[in-house]
């Protein structure tokens, strides 16, 4: 009986939390299907026969630039994710497996990267990108996001790697498997759940970021979707239909990626907690 109460209590907390998390998104999606007047008049109502309108979507999808923005966001996010995962996993393996001069210092240096937000360095990053002639390129964003994602990725992955039994690496060494193959063929396949976790944690902030696209790649050819949406927001008039429609569309890729990784993600998050 007491257990039932406790489970009920926990569930009500979780349901409340889920509502808080989901409601804003629901509001955005709901209102994106309404006429402008209804967005302001009855923001909490579902679209009805009179208020239903696709005008936002028509405008957004009819806008040639939106495609470019989408492509920019997608390419920057996916390439950053790939580099973070590849180099993060390799660095994590090196730090967890090999003892070399300065390895502790390096690990400490990387953990500082987790504590200090990268945005504090925005001005120097901008200077650097100007000097390197990388302003208004997607490469600038990819480099910054890789730097932003690496410390956390290394931290999580090296925890996972240290949980892989030592016998497995030793067995591979006795088998004469080269170190690089030990990493890619023995260790990496075992890291799948951890990699899924890191992938989601890496992608979401990159996809949602407004700051660095605004600073480093505000040009029309290199804008990301989050930046692109801002053109619908004016000082005096904001095209809410388009803003909400664009936001709704922008949710889709993250959702798809999350669904792809979610099973692995859950096993990654609960690893260690449930043996």
């Amino acid at each position, binding site marked *: 009986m007491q257990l039932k109460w406790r489970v009920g209590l926990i569930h009500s907390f979780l349901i409340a939390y889920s509502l808080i998390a989901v409601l804003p998104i629901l509001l955005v999606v709901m209102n994106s299907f309404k006429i402008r007047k209804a967005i302001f008049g009855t923001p909490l109502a579902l679209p009805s026969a009179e208020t239903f309108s696709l005008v936002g979507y028509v405008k957004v999808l009819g806008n040639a630039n939106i495609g470019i923005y989408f492509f920019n966001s997608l390419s920057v996010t996916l390439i950053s994710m790939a580099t973070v995962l590849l180099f993060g996993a390799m660095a994590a393996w090196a730090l967890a497996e090999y003892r070399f001069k300065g390895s502790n210092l390096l690990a400490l240096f990387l953990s500082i990267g987790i504590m200090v937000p990268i945005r504090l360095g925005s001005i120097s990053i901008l200077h650097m990108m100007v000097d390197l002639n990388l302003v208004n390129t997607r490469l600038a964003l990819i480099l910054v996001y890789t730097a932003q994602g690496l410390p956390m990725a290394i931290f999580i992955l090296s925890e996972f790697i240290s949980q892989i039994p030592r*016998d497995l690496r030793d*067995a591979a*060494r006795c088998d004469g*498997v080269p170190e690089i193959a030990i990493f890619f063929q023995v260790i990496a396949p*075992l890291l799948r759940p951890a990699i899924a976790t890191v992938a989601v944690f890496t992608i979401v902030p990159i996809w949602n970021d407004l700051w660095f696209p605004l600073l480093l790649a505000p040009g029309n050819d290199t804008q990301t979707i989050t930046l692109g949406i801002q053109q619908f927001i004016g000082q005096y008039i904001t095209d809410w239909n388009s803003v909400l429609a664009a936001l709704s569309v922008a949710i889709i890729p993250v959702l798809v990626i999350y669904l792809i990784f979610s099973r692995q993600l859950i096993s990654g998050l609960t690893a260690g907690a449930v043996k």
Partner: protein
Amino acid sequence: MAKLSLHQLSKSYGSAEILKDISLDIKNGEFVVLVGPSGCGKSTLLRLIAGLDPVTSGSISIGDRIVNDLEPAQRKIAMVFQTYALYPHKNVRENMTFGLKYAGLPAEEISRRVDEASRMLQLQDLLTRKPKDLSGGQRQRVAIGRAIVREPDVFLFDEPLSNLDASLRVSTRVELSRLHTLLKSTMIYVTHDQIEAMTLADRIVVMNKGRIEQTGTPLELYYQPANLFVAGFIGSPKMNQFSAILRNATAATGFGLSVPVKGGDEGSAVTIGIRPEHFVVGREGEHPHAARVELVERLGEISHLHMKLNSGELMIAEWRGRDAPSIGDSLSLAAETSNIHLFDAKGVRI
């Protein structure tokens, strides 16, 4: 196949000395078991031989080569781990062939070796399974198969049976013994289980606190233990140890057992060791030493009697036959004089 020799081998981690001055020669084709309590350094020694850890000083040679600075794969060894250490995402065949691919062997040679090893270990029907779909015993056979296909000079086993249940342990032990007869390879086997050591070994190396206490055939260790540690370690239940004082070339215990001794210092403390199976047990008054039964462990054909001597000392004697005494019975004992061991004050055999 090759001989293996260790010369004044030492290993330290920081200031902790794990192995001290280990010298050992292993003949071609010999089955040597390293045995000792946990923490005695036996697994570390195996890892040094495998090349998984660097040596601090001394040398290891396999065949005629000193292998100190060679990678594990170049040493022509194969190791079987306690945890099996199979690659979880590869099937049985891939587990066995993974290393061979990097050795640059032709495909026909690889499949010949896999076929041969899987026939030897009855793995033919399991080749496409993943480790998670195998039982413990099957996993261990795959791990052994992975070692066999390498056709190594020396096989290294690190407590390979510890994760198996009791009956499987016995049958796998027999398999290993058969495998050694078949392959005639040099094998080094680490265990803390003295039954495994006694049954498998051509020669046993007893280790304690990073040193070799004694090296010898199973029966040498059983009948002529070099010191108290080996005497206590080999044999189950443990050898009974009684303290005694040496007077007039005779060692006398508190309960009236006296044993003639050649040499030794007059008045010094010595230890008399008698294995439980080397007592003759009879009714009260039948034999010289009286004892009371405190506990009986019945194993079927034999029983272990935990007894208290009239001097207050505790000891174990073996009883053969069905009609074992009960708790509280008063009995009498005699020691078989040919099987009494004597150790001096430092624990060294006299």
